[in-house]
């Protein structure tokens, strides 16, 4: 019986709102990862049009020079920068660095692994991604 299995499923996995900024970072990391995978596939398709000759290649390039194309590329810049910056935080975290030192816990038991350094890195990753997107918009739209 489905209800009895009681697995939270995709809805629970994708819900970023309940468990603090670390869960938001987890959600953004997954979304940007999938977005970059989609971009990678699209990019291979885009560059492969060169095999069909100069006119096909130029037509493809023209597509990226539209407003929609610029918005898409701005999103790619944001995804790429956030995924890289937060990825560096996670590489260190996964190796056991920056997650705090084990010790006797005291009430109200704040989790040392969810420390201010980690939170600052997440906010910085979001901030840097936003700045990079802003720069991208300025260059592509000439703001």
């Amino acid at each position, binding site marked *: *019986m489905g209800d009895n299995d*009681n697995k*939270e499923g995709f809805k629970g996995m994708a819900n970023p709102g309940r*468990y603090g900024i*670390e869960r938001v970072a987890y959600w953004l990391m997954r979304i940007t990862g999938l977005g970059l995978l989609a971009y990678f596939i699209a990019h291979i398709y885009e560059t492969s049009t060169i095999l069909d000759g100069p006119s096909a290649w130029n037509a493809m390039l023209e597509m990226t020079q539209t407003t929609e194309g610029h918005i898409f590329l701005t999103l790619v810049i944001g995804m790429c920068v956030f995924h890289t910056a937060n990825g560096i935080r996670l590489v260190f975290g996964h*190796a*056991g660095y920056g997650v705090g030192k084990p010790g006797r*816990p005291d009430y109200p038991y*704040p989790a040392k692994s*969810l420390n201010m350094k980690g939170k600052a890195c997440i906010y910085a990753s979001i901030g840097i991604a936003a700045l990079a997107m802003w720069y991208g918009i300025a260059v592509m739209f000439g703001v």
Partner: protein
Amino acid sequence: MEQKIHPKIKEYQEKQEESKVEVPKANLVTLKIKKYNPNKDSSSSYQNYQVPVEKWTTVLDALLDVKQNLDHSIGVRYSCRQAACGSCGMKINGKPKLACFTKISELDSTEITLEPMDNFPITRDLVVDFSRLFANHKKIMPYIMNNESEISNGTKEFLQDPKHVEEYIQFAGCIKCGLCNSACPTMAMDSSFVGPQALAQAYRYVADNRDKGKDNRLKVIDESHGIWRCHFAGSCSQVCPKGVDPAMGIQLLRGYLLGFRD
């Protein structure tokens, strides 16, 4: 079904009618309880119960009040009432918490939704089945593995200095309440994942300098549904009521597998 009125609320109402005194509304809360019996029901439903509370009333106190006065049939598991046994974990207003360790007043709401913890099969109403949690816990061999047993004849007890105790003591506080597994986003998708509870316990024994079973344990967790499925979302540590911080244990444990620790 006719909604029963709590005897204390009835008493308040009668007093109000007699003396025209306003009933203090802030002291009443509605518990919205998810009811489901997998052996009988085809789907779950919610039942509302209004109970009077004081500022020290815990969710478990309120639940037991409902059971005593309004509906005896509610399925709820509890034992110690002091966050030591790990029996009364449930989803309180959408987040996994211990009912005995959560005061109604700190929820800042007059309607409290109580549901069984996610990612565990439902036994009945708010009671979930811990078989998988215990099986995963058992899988990581949660005991000191050392051939020079301290209880055999002629051997001395294993001495440990405080520095070594500090390495694992916080992880030894796990009460196996399952809140971490319920909050974990990987558990939400993958029932075969070993889970933050078992992984934190694997670290507890690996970090214990009396233990010699590190290689065996690392072999158990270094598999496709093992430690590599953790993405450090930190929700397990966010909900842990005992300060075990499973996310820290998992990352430190991964350090052993990646060769950063020995």
